[in-house]
């Protein structure tokens, strides 16, 4: 596998022609292509590799090449040049050699690292973060680095993969035989999320682990629980330990990391009461290794780091899920908008206008118009509530009414069917108020009002409010419906509004009310006048409900 330099002044990454130098200085690291020789090292600023440390001589060393071999040559430095810890004057370099120039601690160079031979965790680390784990790092350092890197991986990672990687790392560090991660599900029950053995094989069965120890660890306040069965006398009730010959069990509760935002969260009293998300469980059998001597530091590090790792992964997952959900929702919203879009039919005997002023939230208002053999039909409905649920019901209701109108059904049958559908489906306290009006060429108007704001009938600047009405649709299963008939003359207008209009509020909390609506309807000759009057009345107060006004003018 070709080495892929991640950071630093990189040329032709992975070309394989030039060897690379990985220069590590404290927490920083960069990769340098050894693309010319002699390659100079020293404190002077004109060196190819400048190490600003007083222990490095100004002209410290060179890297030269002879017959395809690379050689480090000390230039008479004060503090010496070292290869793999041995002071040298001149030395041919092998891959993975650690070269130190005067400084023996914070900075060093790895010559042409051989990543194909590195173990998985290190390889993984180098790939994602460019961090080089030195071979003599302690286990704890390795773990910290590993988890740090894995956290970066989180941004693209999936929880399951992270759990498996975590288990592999934990098994390596503890040298245990088997490892499991349990996570709480929505009901709080522990569910096996991942299992691995030390041969990197998946374990899907958790029946042979000690569930009693697992439960104990979750109830305890400690960071981890080590049970060495060779020291424990009371094994009654611990079936798995006896049956499967378990020697050592380590169980680490995974507690949700505390948000360090408030003082309370930092208080030690709350530290242990943090929510337990799950548990990390490793064990070994009698016949195999003893893991009871695993360093407490390592276990403590695993406990805290693993929890935040999982929490981060979960947050990423939740974010992704929410992003998808938002996307779905916006698709649904655009479909809803297209469904609600009305093409007003042109008929010679009447003109129809409709206008909707939406408040911020998605509402349940809809308006529809269909021209049929029975006349021009208009529907105005207001589904109770707001938001997605209201929009969903509005679409369903619209579809039902539309199809039945085009089928030429009587109005009463249409609303009765809609009521039956809504109440039968037990949608739960959701209902709609609606008016369906159908005008024939000869001016005969039939309409059915189901709990809706009564229509305004304007004849010669005189406003009438017919008292006819029925129960809303979807409230009571046994509701019966009746319709009303009016004969219109040329110039008569029928105005339908939703309660968003009559209940439009001004800053004082007054409603626009029927009286104001009737006044403006009598005076005006257009739909716009009604909206202007509402806007003037409300002043700057935003609408709390959709306002829809539909006007049907019979021209004869």
């Amino acid at each position, binding site marked *: 596998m070709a080495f892929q330099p991640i950071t630093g002044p990189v040329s032709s990454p992975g070309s394989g022609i030039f060897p690379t130098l990985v220069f590590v200085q404290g927490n920083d690291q960069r990769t340098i292509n050894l693309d010319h020789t002699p390659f100079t090292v020293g404190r002077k600023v004109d060196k190819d590799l400048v190490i600003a440390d007083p222990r490095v001589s100004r002209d410290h060393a060179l890297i030269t090449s002879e017959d395809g071999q690379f050689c480090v040559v000390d230039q008479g430095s004060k503090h010496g040049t070292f290869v793999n810890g041995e002071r040298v004057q001149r030395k041919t370099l092998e891959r993975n050699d650690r070269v130190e120039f005067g400084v023996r601690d914070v900075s060093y160079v790895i010559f042409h690292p051989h990543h194909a031979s590195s173990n998985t965790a290190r390889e993984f680390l180098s790939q994602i973060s460019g961090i080089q784990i030195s071979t003599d790092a302690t286990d704890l350092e390795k773990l910290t680095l590993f988890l740090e890197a894995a956290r970066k991986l989180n941004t693209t990672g999936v929880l399951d993969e992270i759990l498996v990687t975590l288990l592999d790392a934990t098994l390596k560090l503890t040298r245990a035989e088997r490892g499991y991660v349990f996570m709480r599900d929505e009901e709080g029950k522990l569910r096996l999320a991942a299992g691995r053995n030390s041969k990197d094989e998946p374990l899907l069965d958790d029946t042979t682990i000690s569930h009693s120890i697992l439960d104990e660890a979750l109830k305890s306040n400690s960071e981890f629980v080590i049970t060495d069965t060779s020291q424990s006398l009371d094994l009654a009730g611990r079936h798995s330990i006896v049956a499967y010959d378990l020697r050592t069990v380590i169980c680490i509760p995974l507690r949700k990391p505390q948000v360090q935002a408030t003082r309370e969260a930092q208080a030690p009293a709350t530290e242990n009461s943090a929510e337990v998300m799950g548990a990390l469980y490793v064990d070994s059998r009698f016949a195999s290794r003893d893991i009871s001597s695993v360093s407490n530091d390592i276990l403590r590090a695993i406990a805290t780091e693993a929890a935040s790792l999982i929490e981060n992964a979960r947050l990423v997952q939740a974010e992704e899920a929410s992003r998808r959900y938002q996307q779905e929702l916006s698709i649904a919203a655009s479909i809803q908008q297209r469904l609600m879009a009305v093409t007003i039919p042109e008929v010679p005997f009447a003109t129809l206008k409709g206008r909707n002023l939406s408040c911020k939230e998605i509402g349940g208002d809809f308006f529809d118009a269909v021209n049929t053999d029975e006349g021009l039909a208009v529907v105005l409905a*207001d589904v*109770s*509530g*707001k938001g997605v649920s209201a929009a969903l019901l509005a679409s369903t209701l619209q579809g039902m009414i539309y199809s039945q109108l085009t089928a030429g059904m009587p109005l009463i049958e249409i609303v009765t069917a809609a009521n039956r559908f809504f109440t039968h489906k037990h949608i*739960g*306290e*959701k*209902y709609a*108020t609606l008016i369906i009006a159908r005008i024939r060429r000869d001016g005969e108007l039939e309409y059915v009002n189901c*709990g*809706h*704001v*009564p229509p305004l009938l304007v004849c010669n600047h005189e406003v009438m409010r017919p008292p006819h*009405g*029925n*129960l*809303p649709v979807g*409230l*009571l299963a046994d509701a019966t419906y009746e319709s009303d008939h009016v004969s219109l003359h040329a110039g008569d207008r029928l105005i339908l509004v939703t*309660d968003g209009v009559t209940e439009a509020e001004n800053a004082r909390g007054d409603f626009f009310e029927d009286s104001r609506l009737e006044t403006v309807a009598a005076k005006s000759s257009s739909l716009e006048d009604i909206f202007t009057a509402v806007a003037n009345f409300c002043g700057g107060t935003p609408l709390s*409900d959709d306002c829809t006004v539909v006007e049907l003018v019979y021209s004869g």
Partner: protein
Amino acid sequence: MNLKIDKRVVDGVAIMSCHGRIMFGEEATVLRDSLKDALKTTPRLVLNLSDVTYIDSGGLGTLVGVYSSARAAGADIKLTGLGQRLRDVLQITKLATVFQVFDTEQEALAALGSGAA
């Protein structure tokens, strides 16, 4: 939250007094839960709405929902203290015929056969 509900019991009749707005959402949920809770202890209930300033369509739906399911379960709910607005709404929606509405709490209690009237 714009709704507060007080409950007192007179002669085995739960009297629930609502204060504030009955709206779709939180308020409607509180109303539904309180009424359901009260109906667990007594089947006779008076709902006093005299201090309700506003009831929206969703709130009305909840009221009808609880009312009809309580009636179906054999409970008896009387309404009292309806303001002009609520009367108008019940008139428009023709729900006035569904609810049993009384002008005063005493009349509602009397209709429930309570000795306190």
